[in-house]
């Protein structure tokens, strides 16, 4: 087996998996911090229950993000040593800053938040959840700055003697426009993911008419945030598209399955390719729409993959510079369709909260619950799209994926780790889903009394 393929599978698996948990951490932290702040201000017991209940789910999810995050930081060196040598100067910097400025912050204050209630002053306990939320979101900012550089390299020179990319402008690195559109899109997405979880779980309890006060308030807060965040995610995505038009035209063409350069460009509603994913068989298109999405006017030119490929062959030498279109095309559609549904559903939820009997409606039995899954599919497809759309490059225009892997690794090494991660991550997910379900169903009372267990399986502890 090809080591490049195995390393890519492993990176894809571990990254998408890590990313299933992180957005919820990013968003839910803000919610819990807000709820606890409201309790601190009003002394209203309902807010305390809210903070406790959502805080419990936050912690169960947070733990997985932490342990899978370590793998992320190590595997650049482990599997992509040539990449690490080539970009260490630039990519390593935000990673180290992430550890120093964010990991320490969130890990220290999560400890204080869990163990400090009643032991540290209330103000300090409240501040610690805010610092956790800030720390985790700040960490996303730094890693997206690092990833932004891979998509759109800035502030560097290639050193002719060493053959490595070297940083010459730190300011350009941290103000990389690509990174900031990415950051906006991602942080808003974290809030949306958390909002949909809160909506779904709240609906479960509202349907059963239990803890109504806690969950009505949670539902309403999440409906507002969910709508605003979903709209921001969508606008962020649109801005990314326009930026991509200039910086990564190949990705743009590939996610739209545009073969031949078009002016004005149409938007593909549905394109069927052949099995290789490299030939169009049939398509249904909206005229002008793609030009509008790419550059906000109806008449700009959108280059097709054929022309771009020829252009890259001339620029970078012979090769295939077209990403796997089956993947880019369909992940883009999945992400965008779900993003749109999220905006509509969130608006629908919010619209309905103006009446007091919304929990009685028929749709309420299933829509909020199934909507929990929407952001997860969108998050995963978004990452797959942005990473696969950059292929064959690992750093756009500078270094190819095939030249980036660790040359010393054998297929056996890689199979051991790939299978090992798959098994361990599978078990983690099983434990996590089990606990999430248990605590979500148990309601705020279980979360209030930490040492009282809620499992029906209780058979008497060892003590």
């Amino acid at each position, binding site marked *: 087996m090809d080591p490049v393929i195995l390393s890519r599978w492993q990176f894809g698996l571990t990254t998408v998996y890590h990313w299933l948990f992180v957005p919820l951490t990013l968003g839910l932290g803000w919610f819990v911090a807000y709820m606890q702040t409201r309790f601190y201000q009003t002394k209203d017991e309902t807010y305390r229950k809210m903070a406790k209940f959502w805080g419990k789910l936050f912690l169960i999810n947070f733990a997985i993000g932490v342990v899978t995050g370590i793998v992320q930081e190590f595997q650049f060196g482990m599997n992509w040593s040539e990449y690490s040598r080539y970009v260490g100067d630039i990519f390593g910097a935000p990673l180290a800053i992430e550890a120093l400025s964010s990991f320490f912050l969130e890990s220290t204050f999560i400890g204080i938040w869990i163990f400090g209630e009643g032991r540290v002053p209330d103000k300090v306990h409240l501040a610690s959840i805010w610092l956790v939320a800030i720390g985790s979101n700040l960490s996303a900012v730094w890693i997206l700055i690092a990833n932004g550089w891979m998509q759109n390299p800035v502030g560097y020179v290639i050193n002719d003697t060493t053959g490595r990319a070297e940083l010459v402008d730190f300011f350009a690195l941290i103000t990389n426009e690509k990174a900031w559109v990415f950051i906006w899109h991602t942080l808003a997405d974290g809030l949306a993911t958390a909002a949909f979880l809160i909506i779904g779980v709240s609906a479960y309890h509202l349907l059963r008419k239990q803890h109504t006060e806690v969950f009505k308030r949670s539902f309403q807060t999440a409906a507002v945030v969910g709508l605003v965040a979903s709209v921001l995610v969508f606008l962020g995505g649109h801005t990314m598209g326009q930026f991509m038009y200039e910086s990564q035209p190949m990705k743009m063409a590939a996610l739209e399955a545009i073969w031949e350069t078009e002016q004005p460009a149409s938007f593909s509603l549905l394109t069927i390719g052949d099995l290789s994913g490299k030939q169009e068989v049939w398509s249904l298109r909206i005229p002008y729409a793609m030009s509008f999405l790419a550059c906000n006017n109806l008449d700009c030119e959108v280059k097709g993959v054929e022309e771009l490929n020829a252009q890259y062959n001339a620029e970078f030498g012979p090769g295939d510079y077209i990403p796997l279109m089956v993947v880019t095309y369909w992940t883009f559609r999945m992400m965008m369709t779900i993003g749109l549904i999220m905006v509509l559903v969130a608006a629908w939820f919010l619209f309905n909260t103006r009446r007091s009997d919304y929990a009685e409606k028929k749709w309420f039995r299933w829509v909020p619950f199934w909507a929990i899954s929407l952001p997860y599919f969108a998050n995963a497809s978004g990452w797959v799209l942005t990473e696969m759309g950059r292929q064959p490059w690992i750093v756009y225009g500078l270094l190819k994926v095939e030249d980036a892997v660790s040359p010393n690794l054998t297929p056996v090494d890689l199979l051991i780790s790939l299978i090992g991660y798959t098994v361990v991550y599978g078990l983690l997910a099983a434990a996590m889903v089990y606990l999430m379900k248990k605590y979500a169903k148990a309601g705020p009372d279980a979360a209030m009394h930490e040492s009282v267990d809620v499992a029906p399986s209780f058979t008497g*502890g*060892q003590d």
Partner: protein
Amino acid sequence: MSYESLQILWFVLIAILWIGFFFLEGFDFGVGMLLPFLGKKDVERRAIINTIGSVWDGNEVWLLTAGGATFAAFPHWYATMFSGFYLALFLLLIGLIMRGISFEYRSKDSNPKWRSRFDWMISIGSFLAALLLGAAFANLARGVPINADRMFTGNLFTLLNPYGLLGGVTTVAIFLLHGANFLGLKLEGELRERVNAFASKLWIVATVFYIILGVFTYIAGFWNRGHINPGIVPLTAVAALLVAGYFIRQKNEGWAFIMVALNIVLTQITFFSMTFPNVMTSTTNPDWSLTIYNASSSQYTLSVMSIVALIFVPIVLAYQAWSYYMFRKRIKTDKKTLVY
């Protein structure tokens, strides 16, 4: 600052991160390993976990930061070491995942089987991590096969040489002792007595292994490869360990803890001065060793990172120290006051 002084500065900073990591995570690896052996009842186990409950995650970040700083400051060191020690690091990661998740999940279900399984995962995960880190550092001291392209040419079994294994086992023993001393400082009553009695047995094991490792290092000549003679530092480390034995017998938990901590810090200082200016010594050809000069980032990156470190390191140290101060009280083995 000149390029050379920046390279030295970053070598020292990374050394400090590792020293901090071994000192802090050393005791929480030890506590983790000891958990199922010292805690007989559920409430005792919870008390043991709570001694490090609020700090283990922050301690682990020292490792992440050491990794990140190595990536930024010495990309070739990061690339060669992490790809070279691939399977060992994979197992280390599995160990860290096992223990990290277990701290958070073990009490979230009251089924005794569930709890016991996670307790063992904490113990095994901590053991794996301590063993592999010890073996990795022993191999760095010993030197590893590296070719002219800065590529590691061995495999997992290259690392499992007698010296590497001895380094791993010694690290486990020292961390167990360090963990027991820490528990002695943090627990109360019967459990505290049990821990202290156990510490004096652990001290004998740790001291024996430590001295064998020291003699091996001296005879094999690993200590005089670099430009700095560690001099009396390793002797002081041995002395600290011996003095620790005295304090353990005197039931002076505070000084016993400090002495073992000192031993860990001085051992790490010995390691880094033994290897300087090499960061990875090549056993294939000394000229192919990675040094702070041929493995580092550009002067610009090192300067930027120095400013970043200057800003963040004092802040981090301040709030981490403060969090230890906040939770300085001993933990009662009492279900009513324990945070689950």
